[in-house]
């Protein structure tokens, strides 16, 4: 009897040890994959990086060329997305946090969460139908708009969350002094939540910088440095897609180099955000 009890006991301990170490293996494995992917990008990408590559425009195959216009295009469209998406998203987040405790707020919250999960290619089709066709051509504006639509719900939800973290005592004090609600929100709540909102905004910007699908039909691509929002515009992601699926070795190399640039940018944003928020969470 006592013997079976110890076997049973030993089995329990064994399972405990096995399973707890397995969970550690899962973590180690996943991180190893991350390191492998990033390392590979680094090794393949670094050899093609040069000043010329970063500033030149695409040329016929075999004549070199670069991704300067794609970098500019990505920057312009991301900025445009931020100009549209941040104010709307933050304002919507303020509504949800300050007035959203009713059926309408719940509906908005619910719809925003599901909109975050909608495949971005659908947003591309939507903007194509609504903007590109009437406008008569693909454009940086359409691309930026598609990215903005993706940003709005993300920014709205983070803003709401960040405002929620502001202690109630702060706003109650101001309200008790007779300040109108909008003053309280503007002068007290938003400043207190600002760094959190900025963090969320940066993450949303990083996210849309990496989007490809919504740009395929809206911004298309271009060979030139393009400052005009009504013209097709190149982007890093679409250019990577074109180079990657193409047949030419030199273009594959350019895809890796462009990827190194894009991934570095996105990771730096993520790491900076983590670094600045570390003390608060």
């Amino acid at each position, binding site marked *: 009897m006592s013997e079976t009890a110890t076997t049973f006991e030993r089995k329990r301990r064994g399972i405990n040890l096995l399973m707890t170490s397995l969970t550690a293996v899962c973590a180690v494995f996943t991180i190893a994959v991350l390191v492998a992917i990033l390392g590979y990008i680094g090794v393949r990408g670094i050899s093609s990086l040069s000043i010329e590559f970063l500033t030149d425009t695409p040329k016929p195959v075999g004549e070199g060329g670069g991704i300067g216009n794609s970098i500019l295009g990505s920057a312009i469209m991301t900025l445009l997305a931020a100009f549209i998406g941040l104010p709307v998203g933050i304002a919507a987040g303020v509504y949800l946090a300050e007035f959203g405790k009713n059926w309408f707020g719940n509906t908005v919250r619910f719809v925003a969460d599901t909109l975050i999960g909608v495949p971005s290619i659908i947003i591309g089709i939507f903007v194509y139908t609504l903007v590109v066709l009437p406008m008569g051509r693909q454009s940086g*504006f359409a691309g930026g708009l598609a990215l903005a639509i993706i940003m709005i719900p993300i920014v709205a939800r983070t803003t709401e969350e960040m405002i929620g973290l502001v202690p109630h005592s702060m706003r109650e004090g101001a309200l008790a002094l007779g300040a109108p609600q909008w003053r309280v929100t*503007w002068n007290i709540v938003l400043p207190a939540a600002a760094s959190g909102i900025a963090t969320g905004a940066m993450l949303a910007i990083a996210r849309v910088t990496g989007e490809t699908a919504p740009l395929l039909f809206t911004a298309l691509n271009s060979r030139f440095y393009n400052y*005009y929002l009504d013209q097709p515009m190149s982007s890093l992601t679409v250019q990577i897609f074109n180079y990657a699926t193409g*047949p030419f070795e030199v273009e594959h190399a350019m895809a890796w180099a462009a990827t190194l640039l894009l991934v570095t940018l996105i990771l730096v944003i993520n790491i900076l955000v983590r670094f*600045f928020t570390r003390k*608060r969470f």
Partner: protein
Amino acid sequence: MRKFKSSEITAIFALLMLAAVIVGCSGQKFGESSGSGGGGGTIRLQGTGASFPKPIYDKWVSEFGKIKPSVRIDYQSTGSGAGQKALLSKTSDFGASDDPMTDAAMAEAGTPILHIPTVLGAVVLTYNLDGVTQPINLSPQVIADIYLGNIKRWSDERLKADNPEIQFPDADILPVYRADSSGTSAVFTDFLSKTNTEWAEKVGTNKQPSWITGVGVGAKGNDGVMGQVKQTPNSIGYVELTFAKANNLPAAKVKNKAGEFVEASLTSVSEAAAGSVSSMPDDLRAQITNAEGKGAYPIASYTYILVYKEQADEARGKALVDFLFWAVTDGEKYVEDLHYAPLPKEVMEKVAVKIDSISSGGEPLRR
């Protein structure tokens, strides 16, 4: 992290709003100026379509840009179907397609569309076979059977019969086809439909034909097919000749109507066009697959730039006409390096007349 002051928040918001307004307005203003293209400013032309002539069009717009820096032409290869669509929906100034538009599609436009042949190209079958670098011989029957799924392995007797000296691997064939709407597919399927009744019944001629379910993989664009073949051992795909050459992949010799296995080359493609020059219709829409004549490569085709006969904007129309005329005359010197064949002389004359007929406000644009 330090807290922001409310004045800073106000400032940031004001800045954002201001920037949004500026961006919005300037976008519109730039739009107007670049749209009209007048007053010595840069004229931008957008072209969309076939990936088959992409290497030569890239070269042309790049070289033409050096001669005329005030005209900036952007060519994006998205497939022949997309080229026709972009022209019809007027999202591009010109479309490009290997497959001439159908009467129905042209009628949809409501205003005349011109087909301008630019170069001749060959669709070749390229393959990724370990140890086989020389051209293999393929008859139309074998090509069709591979894509119909009737021939499944490289070791098949019918392949051996045409290639007694080649050691084929004992492996499954992976045919690669175009997943998108493609002029290259149209040329390829047109050739097989003409030579094989089973093909004509089951698959037919189309930019996006009904591929047999379960046979092969689809890829997007000539680039995509080439990339797929390159990445995958024992695969076979059909692409424009220049794509195979650029990748040092072999191209099969294909059996022509006269019964010889012919390699795709400048001469064999020109030969294919030569026979039909006299019978070229006035609208220049012509198919030259399975051409008569010794030495003619059977899967050849013209590739077209599609433009509206009547250009809405005079300055842009003029720039387009100049480019087209330059391309088919001076531009032809870049053609052979990229493994295309230049237009036959008689066709070139007809094309020049066509380009001369492009007008704006009823006035011809080339003077």
